[in-house]
């Protein structure tokens, strides 16, 4: 990566962070959604605590659905205010724009998880999270990259369409199935009453998913953003 590309990437991510801090739209909504989902899960499953595969499933569905909010908003402000045109006029290529959006989405996901993980552990998860925190963070890191990259591509495609926010969830849900399989299977033993080991094959699956979609995103990104 050249210094110029790195500077462009940093500037675009800083712009996205500043915009979100000023407007406070997507992130508070995603946090509120995640917390509300925990309450809904408690009543829907009629359980005070969850453990094992059920807890893993509930956690990843909540995180994925909460991620739809920042993903849906990813290109909205730029499209409405002509930000993408300005960035393109400044000589930034489409790949850098999509890469910056993916990096911004990773930051948004980390922010959501900073609240969701302790809230889930406190309100719904039966077993303690402390002994398995490090392997959980490894799974979260791999899943974040996958969600963010697929989210950036889906958001850019949605920005080209009239349907915009309708396209993101119907596109991202099926695309996220392998990611949810890997993440839920990896975290199920971590959330068990007697915590098991993290299985390497699920981390490999998440890694494969990340590598594949990063490669696809790099290949198509320049065609996603209007010149």
């Amino acid at each position, binding site marked *: 990566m050249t210094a110029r590309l790195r500077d462009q990437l940093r500037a675009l991510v800083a712009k996205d962070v500043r915009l979100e801090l000023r407007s406070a739209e997507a992130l508070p909504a995603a946090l509120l959604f995640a917390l509300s989902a925990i309450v809904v899960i408690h009543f829907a499953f009629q359980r005070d605590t969850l453990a094992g595969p059920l807890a893993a499933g509930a956690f990843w569905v909540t995180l994925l659905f909460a991620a739809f909010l920042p993903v849906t908003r990813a290109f909205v402000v730029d499209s409405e205010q002509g930000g993408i045109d300005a960035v393109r006029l400044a000589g930034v290529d489409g790949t850098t724009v999509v890469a910056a959006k993916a990096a911004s989405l990773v930051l948004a996901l980390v922010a959501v998880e900073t609240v969701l993980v302790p809230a889930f552990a406190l309100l719904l998860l039966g077993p303690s999270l402390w002994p398995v925190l490090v392997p959980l963070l490894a799974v979260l890191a791999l899943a974040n990259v996958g969600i963010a990259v697929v989210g950036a*591509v889906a958001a850019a*495609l949605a920005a*080209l*369409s*009239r*349907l915009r926010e*309708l*396209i993101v969830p*119907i*596109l991202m*849900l*099926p*695309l996220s*199935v*392998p990611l949810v*399989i*890997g993440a839920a*299977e990896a975290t199920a033993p971590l959330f068990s009453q007697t915590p098991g080991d993290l299985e390497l*094959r699920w981390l490999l*699956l998440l890694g*494969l*998913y990340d590598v*594949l*979609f990063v*490669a*696809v995103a790099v*290949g*198509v990104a320049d*065609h*996603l953003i*209007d010149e």
Partner: protein
Amino acid sequence: MTALRSNRLALLAAATACLLALALALVFFYAPLDADQGFVQKIFYVHVPSAIVALGGFVAAGVMGALYLRSGNPRWDLRSYVAIHLSVIFGCVVLATGSIWARASWGHWWLWDEPVLVSFLVIFLLYCVYYPLRYSIDDRERQARAASVFAITAGAFVPVNFIAVRLAESFTHPRVLSQTGGNMPGEMRLTFLVALAAVALLYVTLCRLEIAAKTLSAQLSELRRALESAHVGALPGGPRARRSQAPSTPAASTGAGG
């Protein structure tokens, strides 16, 4: 040129009809009855070839999408669209026959521990998004670009989805193309291969037919537009009439009405 193309299409359609008839004859009169499942197992000769052809079509559509993005030639976008469209239709056949087969063999219309069918459902749901995405973009160039990006992304998703679902579920479904070939006897294997060739040829024929129909329809629209603009140009007050007003010959604006 058009006559030559339609002759080729007719030949292809005839070959498809012959191969389909041969495949059906083999299925009903040559292939032995399955010892466990009996007559219902014959649905396998429709289900598995349709699934293989549909998946091949999805991946091919991704390659065609990449060729469109590389060349900018709208023919590749059209081919990619037609490949996805027909694969979705074949996908409906796969899901319906798979469900019937599951009911007959295992007593349930749907089995979640059946990785191939579950993977196919996920892929089918993803490709159903192609239509709202494509038709919600008015600009033709943008539409083709977005559709091609979708085709590439979804085409890359197909293998990783199969790996993930297969890792997650047990193996209930017979693995037809495994090393053991699902323990198929020779007659069944031959029938399966002929059925696969017939379904693949049917897919290719339908693709060519739809491409020919779309191309002709586009040419017709272009001719209509050209005719309309010629007609508007020839009307009094139209561009051509205004151009010919200088020599003040009233008959100059007539004659183009046909």
